[in-house]
């Protein structure tokens, strides 16, 4: 109910990605610090957030699908989650944590 990240990652679950679909060899290497290009690039392996941040979001009742990631390559950071949590009405924010599903 709270994760949308998988859709972007289907490719790394496919064991054999045909080599022809690969971009030119030095494409990625030529733009080391340039995240904008990566948005159009093939799916990244980077999760949309790290596990402890996902857990924090869960504990705070924040739906990650609705959070805009400001980190590297769209990563949802702890600050993004905290901002989303404090942006909501307090009654929701104090919602007791419950079991996963």
């Amino acid at each position, binding site marked *: 109910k709270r*994760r949308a990240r*998988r859709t972007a*990652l289907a490719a*790394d*679950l*496919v*064991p054999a990605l045909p080599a022809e679909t690969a971009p030119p060899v030095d494409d990625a290497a030529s733009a080391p610090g340039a995240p904008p290009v990566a948005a159009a690039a093939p799916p990244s*392996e980077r*999760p949309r957030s*790290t*596990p*402890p941040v*996902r*857990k924090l979001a*869960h*504990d705070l009742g924040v739906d990650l699908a609705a959070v805009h990631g400001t980190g590297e390559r769209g990563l949802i950071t702890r600050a993004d989650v905290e901002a989303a949590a404090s942006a909501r009405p307090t009654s929701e924010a*104090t919602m*007791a*944590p*419950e*079991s*996963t*599903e």
Partner: protein
Amino acid sequence: MSEQNFDIVILGGGSGGYAAALRAVQLGFTVGLIEKDKLGGTCLHRGCIPTKALLHAAEIAEHARDSAKFGVRATFEGIDVAGVTAYREGIISSKFKGLQGLIKARGITVIEGEGRLVAPNAVQVGDQRIVGKNVILATGSYSRSLPGLEIGGRVITSEQALELDFVPGKVAILGGGVIGVEFASVWKSFGAEVTIIEALPHLVPNEEESISKQLERAFRKRGIDYKIGVRFQSVTQHENGVVVTLENGETVEAELLLVAVGRGPVTAGLGYDEVGVAMDRGFVLTDERLATNVPGVYAVGDIVPGLQLAHRGFQQGIFAAEEIAGLNPIVIEDVNIPKITYCEPEIASIGYTEAKAGEKFGADQVSSYEYNLAGNGKSHILETSGSIKVVRVNDGPIVGVHMIGGRVGELIGEAQLAVNWEAYPEDIAPFLHAHPTQNEALGEAFLKLAGKPLHAL
């Protein structure tokens, strides 16, 4: 009759009670901690610590026996029980001293004596009334027996087993759970013949079935005998031993019978029911936030139904103190608490077994992979075998890790983070584990579930 007042009164100074006390004073509460015996409770004096000392002595003995395999010339001559006792007691007394010092340094008032709950906010200890705005019950557990099976003489529980001043020639063990298999492992390493009797179809029946089966295979190889899926009927004692009769008519003769069929709550006659605390078969019922039905009264540790483990006691003690302080701590379900069985080979697990995960998430929604330690360099170096099984939700998190093999217990720390943080195998895959470690076996299982096995097909 005198009265003492505290913010929080805690009944029982074992793992659950003393952790609650330590956290409560950190949060600014005054605490009265009532203990009738010794701070540290079962775990320190009669449980975790002494058994693990025996298991390490057992490891040393096995290493001496097996030394030739590694090119080391050494001769195993036997067990010096007095030496083992000195080693074991040395650890306990040093930890005990440390704990007493810590409790004192943190400013916790310890009240020595047997307490009885006499009101929702008061515990009676002798002629003192100890009053608290909140009360935490933490009276722990004792070794249970079966109906009609009396403890005494050559029929013993773990308490007496720890005090033995000899290595028995032959022991029968009733119960193939954690405590049963740990003592079986120690005694076998010390030179005894051992037979385990377990009514359920497997040893360590709460574990993933493939793990139980591997333990059975390993025990068979070690010459530890067991009878599974057969119930105990009766035992008779004679001058030199016991004769245990099983429901299928078989008998087992031994010098001693260790009864290790579980632990019951220490709650009888302590006033809980008179004060109106809801109970079930002696256990204190709480909600998931550890509150009993009586406002202001909490319960932690082995008296609360569920896993009976020292670190669950620590966790619940800390939780109760934080809950009283209004910190709204997060609930950790029992299934997400790590479990280790320290026999040889060790077993460690956290999260759902594959079968349970299937029930919870749908059988077609989970996948698993079991990595054989035969592929793991460090395990080969240790000459141990076993496996690591990881269960995930498809396109979802890791929900179970189940391990068996020499020294795998310490690997549970990583698994604990993965499962509790609901990590996906793909989250871990980029981090190659240090080589050569047993960590790597866990890493290989994650890699495989992420669709990119390294040293596996």
